[in-house]
């Protein structure tokens, strides 16, 4: 007899990979933008 595979670990794994990758992308893009604009303002002021 073949046991049916539990799909939930795969579903949670897929959502974990997808959502965490998107959070990292958004946070890093936001930080890079803020850092670049802050540096530009500093260079302008000097």
């Amino acid at each position, binding site marked *: 007899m073949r046991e049916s595979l539990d799909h939930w670990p795969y579903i949670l794994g897929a959502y974990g990979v997808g959502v965490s990758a998107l959070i990292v992308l958004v946070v890093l893009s936001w930080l890079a933008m803020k850092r*670049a604009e802050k540096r530009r303002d500093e260079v302008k002021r000097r």
Partner: protein
Amino acid sequence: MLAGGAVVWGLFFAPAEALQGESVRIVFIHVPSAWLGMGGWAGIAIASAMLLIWKHPLAAIAARAIAMPGMVFCAICLATGSIWGRPTWGTWWEWDGRLTSMLVLLFLYAGYIALTQTNARSGGSEKIAAIFGLVGAINIPIINRSVVWWNSLHQPPSITAGKSAMTAEYLIPLLVAVIGFSLLFGAVVLMRMRTLIAEQQIEARLRRRALDDQPVIPSRPLAESV
């Protein structure tokens, strides 16, 4: 919010499907990622064409800004597809047309990012990256038609222009997810465009300042010129 709502909807409220079972929930993150991975390269190709034809100054910045989120969505598509394949197909990976052409797209993104970063550092021509962006676009119709042209484990397109093989209980959350992830993609592209513009302004200002600070060296000694 739309992306988050769609994720919650797909994860907790969408019903299990008769053939795929519970793993159908992965579709709500896999399909938008696939579309945006391909859409991202289409955006690069359009921006590249604008750069080559009209030499629009924002075109190169837009193309560079699209590349990273495009690559991330492409990677999410491949990862979630692989995870979905294990319980559904019984394998993590299959070298068929759809999966292989999507993997090629990931490598194209990596190559494009490496090329544009090298160009930005060494002051190389933006045209080379634009040509790369246009040539790479050949892969997009190949990905799209791969399930029709070749025998594939991957199912044929469920949603085509004007009709859908999906019922409303899957189609509606999927469309919400597509809209939500597209807005997220757009927001990331705008953030990256602002970053690139700020970096260019810093570089221009520093270069101008360096030129202004240089002492003026007369071509002949002053005594001679008088």
